[in-house]
């Protein structure tokens, strides 16, 4: 049966990218047995491709300084005479520049690699920050309860009525207003991480609060309280490890969203400046040259961004289904 080999081949690829292959794999096997075979096979093949794409892109981002033929952000190495060159295989392209150059003569292949690095880094840090806020507030809300719980969850409710991108834009505007002395180049990175963190924490808080409410009435927590441990210690050492599981899935799904948010903010011109571009900034730059037929400046960052988000989303979907006890 062809699907068995496909499923086996998937596991090693998964192990490299998904953080919890041990829990995920049996769920998938069970699902393959339960569900329509053809559909499952198609689904798992997609997951496999998604995993490979994710690994390749993450590796490319990690090793960008070694892979990239040039450092695109070193002004000394960039020559304006090289600007607006098409990709190598198009007429007029030069062998030095695989994917062509942008308006300032930067090698586009290198720029995309570095941009991918920045985008992924901001996305990951933003999601980690969101998880940190959400987990802390969720733990406190669930464990302490009462008025603290009510206040935190009302804030969460109100925030949920707004799209994340709007919150991120607002945070961006307000923080830049507060830091009016500093230039955007120095603060953009931190502000983006902050904006993403503050727009995505609600989901973590709700999930963690829900499981904390269940967990805090169990005997071992009562026992820990009886021994006289401090509430902070109980929350961190005893409650947290038992409620943190579902966060993994939210992390994966949110990474795609966070990368999109960063790219969107940069595209709108309130994210990273052109001197340290992310994928979104590169697309913003490239869009201006679309009408003169220079499609490559926008196409390669765009395809990279779309591929990354699609792959991460597929992995997230798969992880959610695989870890969902209802589907096992």
């Amino acid at each position, binding site marked *: 049966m062809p699907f068995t080999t496909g499923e086996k081949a998937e596991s090693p690829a998964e192990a490299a990218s998904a953080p919890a292959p041990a829990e995920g794999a049996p769920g998938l096997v069970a699902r393959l047995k339960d569900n329509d075979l053809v559909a499952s096979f198609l689904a798992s093949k997609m997951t496999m491709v998604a995993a490979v794409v994710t690994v390749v892109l993450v590796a490319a981002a990690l090793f960008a300084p070694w892979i990239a033929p040039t450092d695109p952000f070193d002004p000394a190495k960039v020559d304006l005479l090289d600007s607006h060159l098409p990709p190598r295989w198009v007429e007029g392209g030069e062998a030095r520049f695989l994917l062509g150059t942008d308006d300032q003569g930067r090698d586009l292949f290198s720029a995309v690699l570095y941009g991918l690095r920045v985008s992924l880094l901001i996305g990951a840090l933003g999601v980690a920050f969101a998880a940190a806020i959400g987990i802390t507030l969720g733990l406190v809300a669930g464990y302490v309860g009462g008025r603290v719980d009510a206040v935190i969850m*009302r*804030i969460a*409710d*109100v925030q949920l*009525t*707004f*799209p994340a*991108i*709007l919150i991120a*834009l*607002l945070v*961006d*505007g*307000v923080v*830049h*207003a*507060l830091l*009016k002395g500093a230039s955007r180049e120095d603060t953009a990175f931190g502000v983006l991480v902050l904006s993403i963190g503050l727009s995505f924490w609600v989901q973590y808080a709700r999930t963690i609060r829900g499981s904390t409410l269940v967990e805090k009435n169990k005997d071992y927590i009562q026992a820990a309280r009886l021994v006289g441990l401090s509430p902070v210690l109980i929350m961190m050492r005893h409650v947290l490890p038992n409620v943190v599981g579902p966060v993994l899935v939210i992390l994966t799904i949110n990474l*795609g969203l966070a990368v*999109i948010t960063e*790219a*969107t903010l940069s*595209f*709108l*011109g*309130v994210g990273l400046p052109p001197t340290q571009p992310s994928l979104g900034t590169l*697309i913003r730059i490239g*869009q201006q040259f*679309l*009408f003169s*037929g220079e*499609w490559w400046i*926008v196409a390669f960052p*765009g395809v990279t*961004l*779309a591929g990354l*988000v*699609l792959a991460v*989303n*597929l992995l997230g979907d798969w992880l959610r289904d695989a870890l969902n006890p209802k589907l096992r």
Partner: protein
Amino acid sequence: MIAFIIRRLIQSIGVLLAVALIAFTMFRFVGDPVNQMVGVETSAAEREQIRKSLGLDDPVVVQFGRYVAKAASLDFGISYQFRQPVTKLLAERMPATLELALVSSAFALAVGIAMGVYTALRRNGWLAQVFQAVSLVGVSLPTFLTGILLIYVFSVLLGWLPSFGRGDVVAVGSWWTTGLLTWTGLRALILPAITLGLFQMTLIMRLVRAEMLEVLRTDYIKFARARGLSQRAIHFGHALKNTLVPVITIAGLQLGSVIAFAIITETVFQWPGMGILFLQAVQNVDIPIMAAYLLFIAFLFVVINLVVDLLYAAVDPRLKSTVTAS
């Protein structure tokens, strides 16, 4: 029933007050309002005068009360960039954004429902598979990328449709302008509306498909088959009708985020709406506009939520009975 309506109303007002508090905090404490209004050569005494006339020396609670009262009468102060009342600026651009949002929602509903029904009925057909794949890509593609792609194909390569602006607009009444009545206006609307509606379209398609598959398994559909009704009557008269309540709810609730997401689409297509105004405000730290826009979106969300809830209570007899029971 009346108790339910009153409770929902109080909740909505609570949400609006909370958002107003955030808007007020931004307005009052992020950047000094006086500094934004005066020039460099204004003396300290004059500044003090303005402070007093604006009431910035009063207790914060009083100031918040005044802010809410003013906001309720649609006075959001003067924009720092344009030196004009924020309300006027927003009102000028509202027609463009609302038109774009409504047309793209209509597009999303029409195409989304059609694709959803098709994929549910011909689950294994190749076209259904294509639709499913497209919906997956549609969810993952960032809005601005879709917009750029459409511009490249239909404006740059094919040259069929304009890539920016609103075309010619016609004034309707004293303050509304519409692009729906001119040929250039309609042409200019197509690409932005598709870009903005694509995400909702995939959402609606997936929802309709899931709901249809659910409904088609129920007993009353089996019974309808047993009665010998035609396929068309079963699928569209019985099945689709019963999937539409959740679909219309979601579409209604999404209208608020469509308007918020219009920020991105408007930027890509240089559409002269509220979104661009808000974005300029963020870039130039024009707090009064940011605060007013925030309140506007909150108001919209609250109203839509309220209407949907009330409609639900009115339409669904089961909900009505539980509401009166509790």
